[in-house]
């Protein structure tokens, strides 16, 4: 049975609405953090256009805040891009985890979906896919709504930033460390990961003090993740032997 055109149109409208509603909690989070990004970008001397372009084209909160810090400290462009790559490499996991649900999507729909995949939209989509088969319209509307909030927050930050002389009394310089802490806690599922976090963090500090510059993050991450895998393999080996 084919639904009539008008019934189809109104069901699509409902799907859009559901998509916007799903994005609600994300919007509440993205506007204030986007605002902090906008203020800091303005203070770092990044133009309004470049600030908004970063939120439109890169659309990855922690890496954008890091980039602003690196621009402010006059780091070379290559190190900004490499740091961004490492920081955002975690999206591989999110993308891989959702891939089974997108089997029937067209390639260009997948391309659009992947462009707006973030930690937060991932969390919402993973829950939605687990509880049924949401429509493409709903999923993509959630994504577009979330990024709109992010770009809007960034713009608001640029505007507000012009009347803020110092970010320190508002502790906007603590938004990024606090975000790292929260994201780290949210990503941690077991004790090995806690160990990896502590080892990698200590290694990163050690490398920085040895004077490797910004490379400490990349080097420590590669070594830290490898330590985790080796420990995991060792654990499995021990279990096999004891049986």
């Amino acid at each position, binding site marked *: 049975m084919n639904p009539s055109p008008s019934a189809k149109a109104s069901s699509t409208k409902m799907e859009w609405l559901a998509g916007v509603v799903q994005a609600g909690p994300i919007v509440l989070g993205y506007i204030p953090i986007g605002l902090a990004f906008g203020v800091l970008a303005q203070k770092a001397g990044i*133009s309004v256009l470049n600030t908004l372009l970063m939120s439109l084209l890169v659309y990855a909160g922690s890496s954008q805040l890091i980039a602003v810090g690196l621009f402010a400290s006059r780091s070379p462009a290559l190190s900004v891009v490499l740091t961004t790559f490492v920081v955002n490499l975690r999206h591989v996991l999110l993308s891989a985890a959702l891939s089974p649900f997108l089997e029937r999507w067209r390639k260009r729909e997948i391309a659009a979906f992947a462009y707006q995949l973030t930690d937060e939209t991932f969390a919402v989509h993973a829950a939605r896919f687990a509880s049924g088969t949401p429509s493409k319209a709903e999923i993509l509307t959630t994504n577009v709504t979330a990024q709109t909030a992010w770009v809007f927050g960034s713009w608001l930050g640029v505007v507000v930033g012009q009347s803020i002389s110092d970010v320190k009394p508002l502790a906007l310089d603590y938004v990024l460390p606090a975000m790292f802490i929260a994201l780290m806690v949210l990503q941690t599922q077991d004790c090995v990961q806690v160990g990896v976090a502590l080892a990698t963090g200590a290694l*990163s*500090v050690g490398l920085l003090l040895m004077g490797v510059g910004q490379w400490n993050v990349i080097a420590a991450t590669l070594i830290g993740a490898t330590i985790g895998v080796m420990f995991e393999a060792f654990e499995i080996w021990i279990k096999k032997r004891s049986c």
Partner: protein
Amino acid sequence: MDQKTILLTILGMALVTYIPRLLPVWVLASKSLPQPVVAWLRYVPVAVLAAMLFPAIVVQDDQVDLGLSNLFLWAAFPTLLVAWKTRSLLGSVIVGAVVVAVARYMFGL
């Protein structure tokens, strides 16, 4: 840095951010990555966040500072607690920033 260089850097950032988002969902469909790669990738998020966080809260003026005046370090504990208990990104960020702002106001740090 001039705005043109910043723009080019942003384009580079956009490219290296999009590829890891797109590739798995584009090529995998119902296939999956080799097991060792999956195991390794599972540690990348925690590792990279720790690698960025620790220097930000422990190092002050090119030295390890675990003293009482290192506000960023001590504010990490309430932030961690809120993140662990509420699992809310925004809630943790607000608590962390408020703790730092209030401490700065009260102790003039």
